[in-house]
């Protein structure tokens, strides 16, 4: 193993994180390389020095502040959560949907009248029209011939 390859292994060796075969390779190199041996020793010393830094504890109000931040978060609600929260809303929505579907799909009862089935007024027999009862009740203009007839009184005065 070369010194440059040791760069990738040395810290893991100091930490004891190497596999057995890798560790043996490193130790074989260290046995013949004073510079790398010194580096290993000094890295161990650095590691030990880093242990001397004290830890700090979060302040007592830390948890309270986190909980307050979380509590202030807006509640996100999905559509399905509305159904869970309010069965009445869900029931009303379902009924509305059913009603819409029912109205949209029911058959129309108005008969379709084909154009050719319509009666043609122009071809109607005059006698049929004149015998139509409401028309016969209408007043008629007096004829000159009927002027002397006292029984011929207009229907409306």
């Amino acid at each position, binding site marked *: 193993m070369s010194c440059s390859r040791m*760069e*990738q292994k*040395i*810290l*893991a060796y100091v930490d004891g*994180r190497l596999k057995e075969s890798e560790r043996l390779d490193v130790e074989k190199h260290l046995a013949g390389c004073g510079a790398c*041996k*010194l*580096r290993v*020793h*000094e*890295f161990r*010393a*650095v*590691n*030990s*020095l*880093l242990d*001397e*830094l*004290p*830890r*700090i*504890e*979060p*302040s007592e109000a*830390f*948890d309270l*502040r*986190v*909980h307050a*931040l*979380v509590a202030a*978060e807006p509640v*996100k609600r999905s559509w399905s959560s509305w159904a869970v929260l309010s069965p009445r809303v869900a029931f009303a929505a379902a009924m509305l949907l059913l009603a819409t579907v029912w109205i949209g799909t029911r058959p129309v009862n108005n008969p379709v009248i084909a154009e050719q089935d319509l009666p043609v007024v122009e071809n109607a027999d005059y006698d049929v029209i004149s015998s139509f009862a409401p028309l016969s009740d209408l007043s008629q203009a007096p004829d000159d011939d009927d002027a002397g007839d006292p029984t011929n009184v207009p229907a409306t005065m």
Partner: protein
Amino acid sequence: MLDVKAGDEQSFTLLLQRYRSPLVNFLYRMVRSREQAEDLAQEVFLRVYRAREEYVPSAKFTTWLFRIATNLALNSVRDNRYQRMEISLDAPLNPDAEDGDEKTLDVPEKNPNIEQHLVDEARKKMIRHAIDKLPEKQRAAVLLHKYQELDYGEISKILQCSESALKSLLFRAYETLRVELAPLVARQGQLPG
């Protein structure tokens, strides 16, 4: 985290209790301000809470948690550096301004020998400054490796680099620390024959 995703508020409290201290310590060592570290840690937990519904356990929870924390810390360090550049035009920054946080934890009664206490304080200050001088990505790598004891795979995912790149990053960081802390390293003991 899956319980939190399912809406179990109690599980979120347990998550908070378990990870608040490692997170605050990691962030404190990154940004060097207790107040800012706590603010950032709160932001991390808030983001975890917000993302709970989308959470997919594709990686370890700690990897995901520290990835959020590292990104926030790196952004904060960069913002602070920019602010310091602006402030330094008017007033020099006291490099020991944040040291009081840790000093308060060292109870003088535990160090009857005041001289030894001062030596220890100077030693800690030197170590802290050596870590502070590391480029931020190297610093994050060292902190995650040394104090969180995460494996190389996890750290490389957090820092979004390959394992090989991470090992080189850590090697360079330890080389820098070895040089910066040379007086202390030499006192740690002679090389065994």
